[in-house]
């Protein structure tokens, strides 16, 4: 009897193992598709001819952070040529199809802005997707004593403008989608409070000034709601209110929440939390409901989630000793660790991320990362330590 059992095991064990290997193999195939999208895609080789100085610098920067590489014409897939004598003019040719994709001239602005406009047209002509060369960012700039100001700038860090002049602790700027208006945290009145600030008129007002913590505002895609962290109920939790601060509603009862962000359809709010002493990402229906945890396989201590505008990915920071910028499918699953850094924010193109990178002197600089190709470039700096970037979308 015993011998028979062993025989059976001998026969069936390999079968089971084989089945397990097949099942595992299938799993790995689906996971691998995600990995090849993020972090393992080859850049598109282009040649750039006829441009000089600032125009050339702008075109190279703009294209590099959207997944292009620069090669000689005989190795290029697309030939980009033109001039910046007086104004920017250029054309794009598909070297293999031998077709002209774009021929355009730009007038009425600085060479820098004309070059950004050309870069957007190049990206649209080659990829069919809208470029990001004329988008804006917000961030905080901090002096060594901890006081800072909220800034807005072009996506490459040029043309920075201070939004606040308070000389106090500030944090977590967030754009109102499609508008020149931001929410941010300021300690100007003593406590960390959340302010709404119209950039055009300079009008600002507190929308959350409760006892305890008021921070991490995040505006819904339609601009009508604001998610935030308040501790007035006795622990830091996710709340949501109308754009003007009315209609406040508590969404979570977990013990230590931070950094809410919205799904692009406005249905979910993803946030970092602690459950049973474990730090993880979770999501809650924006109208209220049960909290669901999000699997982040392969990393620990995830914080600072940001949902991609196309809805497919959640970028976040993991902490395993040092900080890393990571992406995970929005439904959770296997994580792709991209580069060392913190607090990623998606560009409108759902591929470029801006994040804070700590230098050897413990300052932060802002950097752009093209997530599919992992191409990275620092943006122009404001004087202090720059962190908590938010991409206008």
């Amino acid at each position: 009897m015993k011998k028979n059992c062993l025989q059976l095991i001998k026969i069936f064990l390999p079968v089971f193992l084989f089945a397990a290997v097949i099942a595992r193999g299938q799993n790995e195939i689906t996971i691998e598709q995600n990995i090849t999208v993020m972090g393992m895609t080859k850049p598109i080789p282009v040649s750039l001819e006829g441009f000089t100085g600032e125009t050339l610098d702008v075109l190279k920067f703009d294209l590099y952070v959207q997944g292009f590489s620069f090669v000689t014409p005989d190795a290029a897939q697309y030939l980009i040529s033109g001039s910046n004598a007086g104004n920017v003019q250029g054309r794009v040719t598909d070297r293999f199809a031998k077709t002209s994709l774009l021929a355009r001239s730009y007038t009425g602005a600085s060479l820098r802005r004309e070059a950004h406009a050309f870069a957007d047209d190049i990206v649209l002509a080659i990829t069919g997707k809208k470029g990001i060369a004329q988008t804006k960012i917000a961030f905080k700039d901090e002096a060594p004593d901890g006081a800072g100001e909220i800034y807005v700038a072009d996506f490459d860090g040029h043309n920075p403008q201070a939004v606040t002049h308070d000389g106090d602790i500030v944090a977590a700027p967030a754009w109102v989608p499609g508008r020149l208006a931001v929410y941010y945290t300021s300690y100007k009145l003593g406590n960390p409070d959340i302010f709404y600030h119209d950039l055009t008129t300079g009008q600002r007002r507190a929308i959350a000034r409760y006892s305890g913590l008021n921070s991490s505002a995040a505006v819904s895609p339609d601009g009508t709601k604001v998610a935030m962290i308040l501790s007035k109920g006795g622990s830091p939790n996710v709340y949501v209110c109308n754009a003007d601060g009315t209609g406040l509603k508590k969404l979570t009862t977990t013990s230590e929440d931070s950094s809410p962000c919205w799904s692009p359809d406005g249905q979910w709010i993803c946030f970092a939390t602690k459950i049973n002493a474990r730090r993880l990402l979770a999501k809650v229906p924006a109208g209220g409901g049960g909290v669901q945890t999000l699997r982040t396989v392969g990393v620990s201590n995830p914080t600072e989630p940001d949902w991609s505008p196309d809805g497919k990915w959640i970028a976040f920071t993991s902490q395993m000793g040092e900080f890393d910028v990571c992406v995970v499918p929005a439904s959770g699953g296997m994580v792709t660790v991209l580069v060392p850094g913190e607090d990623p924010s998606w560009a409108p193109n759902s591929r470029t991320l801006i994040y804070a990178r700590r230098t050897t002197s413990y300052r932060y600089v802002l950097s752009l990362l093209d997530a599919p190709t992992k191409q990275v470039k620092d943006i122009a700096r404001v004087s202090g330590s720059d962190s908590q970037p938010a991409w206008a979308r």
Partner: protein
Amino acid sequence: MKTTKLIFPLVLALAATLATTGCKHKPVGVTQLPGQKPMVGENNNPPTLPNTQPINPENQPGTTPLANPDVFDNMLADRAALAAYTIHFAYDSSAIRSSEKANLASVAQQLSGDASTKLLIEGNCDERGTEEYNRSLGERRALAAREALAKLGVDPMRVETRSFGKDKPVDPGHDESGWAKNRRDDFVLLHPKPGS
């Protein structure tokens, strides 16, 4: 002679073809870029911030809800009075360690001596941890001390919490000896302003 006569028109024809095909690549569209307005308007930053609190505090379940912030207006901060009783925390934790309980008892005793005083607890973190994560952790640390003080008989409605996250380190060091000092709650005694 004959061949050169034949070649000449051919060269002309070729040049003409090149010129016409070349024309195709010349910029055809002209994009006129609009004038750039500054992102931030001129009348920025009113010198005084409007002190609006548009929302009525509602009754939501929580651990120990906080008092309305108005209660703490018109108070003078005395940072020295309780400076000796700062408490410290383990890495990434808001649990009050038994070694810190004597300091909390001293804070409770000070508050019991004068019912007109209130307390501000400032929660702080070391630099390990992301910024907003630390702001929440610092708040948890301040709230943990508030709850411990409530058990010692201090009315929690007299206690205000404030988190600085990792923005206010007392030690600039980037090692455990610096971090250990920065993971702390500072206690600030609040006196009513004379005449209020």
